[in-house]
């Protein structure tokens, strides 16, 4: 057969299908539409939600946007607040007479500034450590429950120890950074960081263990849920105080900002970083602070739980978490205006002589309390 005949046959078959089969198909499709559309919408919604929720968690909360915004707002607030304590105005002309764009201006300027990399530095470490610095505490923040089903990283019921493990890794980076910069001030600063973390972190871990013991779980969501009748700040008051001091110590905030003491060690292990690398180290300070504060809220102040009135809980929401965060930030900044910096030996003495025994005492009290509850 030649090609023309074949084409004709094909066209004839098509016409016959169109006349006999197609109407039926169309009618069937139209008949099934009312059931199909909701199905489709639901499927689309599931698709979006399934992908969107982690995406939102990564980007919005507790992700990048949250951390950056937190650092920005805290820096701005701190500068304004300190200026008020000094009877000054603080940043003013940058951004409509309030200075709220000041941090952005600083960041942009640092971003476009020349990166001075001295000759004697260990280049790879020198460049890597400022980037690692905010990353590690940011990883730890992913474990914090912002709502009962708003946890970015589900650690399978072990989120507290994993948080402590990741956050405990953070101090290693300043040590490397200080060593890599090959400067006497940075090396003293990084050694001070090491001392400080060791003396501060152990009481923190013991306090955290006590709360886990009280809640009967190592999962942060369970710990929060266990606080539904009463925030752990009340039964573990000693632990609450110890953790608060330790939190300031870990975040290197003012009474304990020994490693970056400006009047002694230029700015400690940050001395040699220039341009955006310095911007990262500056951000890291606030990320560490954010991480420990969030853990503090989760462990002692009921996390995302609203205050419950006579056993009737108010609406649980991320909002409560942010509110508690704001209160603690204000308190910590206030402490900065009121107290001078302690010396290294005094800080270590505080860590080992006071925080450590108090944390242990707290643990024993918790054990007794738990034992009493079980009986």
């Amino acid at each position, binding site marked *: 057969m030649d090609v023309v005949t074949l084409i004709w046959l094909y066209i004839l078959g098509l016409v016959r299908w169109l006349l006999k089969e197609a109407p039926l198909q169309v009618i069937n499709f139209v008949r099934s539409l009312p059931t199909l559309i909701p199905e489709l919408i639901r499927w689309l919604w599931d698709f979006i939600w399934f992908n969107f929720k982690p995406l939102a968690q990564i980007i919005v909360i507790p992700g990048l946007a949250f951390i950056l915004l937190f650092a920005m707002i805290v820096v701005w607030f701190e*500068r304004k607040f300190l200026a008020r304590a000094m*009877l000054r105005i603080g940043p003013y002309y940058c951004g409509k007479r309030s200075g709220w764009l000041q941090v952005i201006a600083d960041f*942009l300027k640092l971003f476009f500034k020349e990166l001075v990399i001295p000759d004697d530095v260990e280049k790879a470490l020198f460049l890597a450590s400022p980037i690692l610095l905010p990353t590690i505490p940011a990883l730890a923040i992913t474990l914090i429950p912002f709502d009962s089903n708003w946890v970015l990283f589900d650690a399978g019921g072990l989120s507290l120890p994993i948080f402590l493990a990741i956050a405990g890794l953070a101090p290693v980076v300043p040590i490397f950074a200080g060593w890599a910069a090959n400067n006497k001030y940075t090396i003293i600063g990084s050694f001070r960081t090491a001392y400080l973390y060791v003396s501060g972190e152990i009481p923190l871990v013991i306090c955290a263990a006590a709360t886990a013991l009280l809640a009967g779980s190592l999962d942060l969501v369970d710990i929060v849920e266990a606080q539904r009748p009463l925030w752990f700040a009340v039964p573990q008051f000693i632990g609450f105080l110890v953790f608060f001091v330790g939190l300031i110590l870990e975040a290197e905030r003012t009474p304990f900002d020994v490693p970056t003491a400006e009047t002694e060690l230029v700015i400690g292990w940050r001395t040699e970083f220039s*341009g955006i690398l310095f911007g990262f180290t500056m951000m890291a300070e606030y990320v560490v602070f954010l991480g420990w504060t969030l853990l503090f809220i989760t462990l002692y102040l009921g996390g995302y739980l609203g205050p419950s009135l006579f056993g009737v809980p108010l609406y649980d929401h991320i909002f409560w978490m942010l509110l508690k965060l704001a209160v603690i930030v204000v308190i910590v900044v206030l402490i900065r205006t009121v107290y001078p910096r302690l010396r290294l030996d005094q800080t270590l003495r505080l860590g080992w002589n006071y925080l450590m025994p108090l944390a242990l005492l707290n643990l024993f009290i918790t054990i007794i309390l738990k034992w009493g509850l079980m009986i």
Partner: protein
Amino acid sequence: MAERFAAPIYGVIDYLLTWARKFSIWPIHFVTGCCSPEFMQVSGSRFDMERLGVLPFASVRQCDCLMVVGVISRKMGERVKYLYEQMGEPKFVVSVGACPTGRGPFYDSYATVAIDDLVPVDVYIPGCPPRPEAIIQGLMLLQEKIRKECGLRAGKE
């Protein structure tokens, strides 16, 4: 052709860049001479240079403004030069007071140098010591200079 399309983009970047640099001048904690108390008054309450985003900073690496406050002796002159070389671009120099500008009351001393022999200067502030208003004015002149001259395309037109 490419120039025509690129021009607005450059304009935006230029604007952002100069704006950021203008409002974020970080001078070093470095005093060479005796105008330092007046400089301290400027950072104090009545004059408050932080309003302009001027934040004295500790280490050379992060700073972008060398405020030469007061007389420069020969021994200090080397340090001024050294510090200027350590700073990252863009960097500015402000000469505060009569002494760095023209050796001031110590014009015939064997031990002083003028700043022009050491580093390029952006703004000179005269006075012995300059009044705080003068220092603020000098900083504002520096901002103006940054706005005009420190963009991406500065010097290319």
